[in-house]
């Protein structure tokens, strides 16, 4: 065992921070090593001498009074807060429970996802618009596929574009003429005038 390590163990032994196993090894080493015994003894002497000789002094009376005043002040402050805290404890518990219930209710009542996919919804919209168009013209239109027989997405998209007056079937003249192209209608709210009759297919 290196004596440098033993010196450290001597220091740790003094503060009670050395494990019992190492304490045993330290004692064995000290019995056999003059250097480490001398080191331990001189360390004891130095610390004892320093303990008595180091400046100790005492804080001024003003400092002591200030500390006592601060202690009183904080204690009073804490006492003022305490009854409030005691009241708040059950209330905050209840509030937390209520929040939990609201959160659980919200989760329970959450809207269930539509079982139909986007394609089916699009078909429904198209059907509504088609019915409207058929109603105004008194028939003569070719119905698109029903919601039960969904079209491909591409076909549906072109149908929707056509309904909104954005398809390529308009003539150049129609496009150039101001107001020649009907305004796009919101297919859901139908807030704008209905589309002019169009022939599908």
């Amino acid at each position, binding site marked *: 065992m290196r004596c440098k390590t033993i010196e450290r163990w001597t220091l740790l032994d003094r503060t009670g921070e050395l494990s019992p196993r190492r304490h045993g090894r330290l004692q064995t080493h000290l019995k056999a090593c003059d250097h480490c015994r001398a080191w331990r003894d001189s360390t004891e*002497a*130095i610390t004892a001498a320093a303990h008595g000789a*180091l400046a*100790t002094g*005492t804080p001024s009376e*003003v400092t002591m009074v200030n500390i*006592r005043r601060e*202690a009183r002040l904080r204690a009073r402050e804490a006492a003022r807060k305490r009854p409030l805290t005691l009241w708040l404890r059950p209330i905050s518990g209840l509030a937390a429970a209520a929040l939990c219930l609201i959160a659980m209710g919200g989760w329970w009542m959450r809207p269930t996802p539509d079982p139909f996919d986007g394609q089916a919804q699009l078909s429904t919209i198209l059907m509504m618009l088609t019915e409207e168009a058929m109603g105004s013209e008194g028939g003569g239109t070719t119905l698109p596929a029903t919601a039960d027989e969904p079209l491909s997405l591409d076909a549906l998209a072109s149908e929707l574009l056509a309904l909104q007056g954005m398809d390529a079937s308009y003539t150049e003249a129609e496009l150039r003429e101001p107001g020649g192209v009907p305004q796009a209608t919101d297919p859901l709210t139908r807030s704008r005038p209905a589309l002019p009759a169009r022939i599908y297919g």
Partner: protein
Amino acid sequence: MDSEDRRLIAQYREGDVESLSTLVEKYRRPLFGFILNMTEGKGDADDIFQETWFRAIRGLASYRQKNFMGWLVRIARNLVIDRHRRQRPGVSLDARHEEDGSPLIELADRAPGPLGRAATRDDISAVALAVESLPGEQKEVFLMRVQAGMSFREIAVTQKVSINTALARMQYALTKLRPLLRAEFENQRETP
């Protein structure tokens, strides 16, 4: 934690101001001694002692440490470092390194401490002067161990170093103090 400290702290938390006075009195000498040896005069030491207790009082509501004295010393040490930084804003904290390779924080050791200023006085013992002459971190470890009675684990936590570094600093301090004190011991032996 000392069971008496625990009891006094609990009583103060319940509003018994006298319990805190007992704690202040209990640690007055070692804490003030530590601060006095780390600062540049009694005025500074008084200020830091007061601020240490102010912070301790404010922190007592959430106090969870094991060693009350170690906690007070940590607060005091931080205040000493803050004050030193304010007084010497240009000094780099890691410009120099100690023999053990760890960064050396410039502490009050570079300025004349209470003992340094009194170096010409006869009533200051050679031991105290020798301690005063130690490099900052070594002096701090020595004071925390000898004056504040802190364990090496607590010293390591306070200095934010490993236990081995704290032990190495103590070893260096003792190595430097030994020859300085040998003469005094020999003088004492010769004096009848």
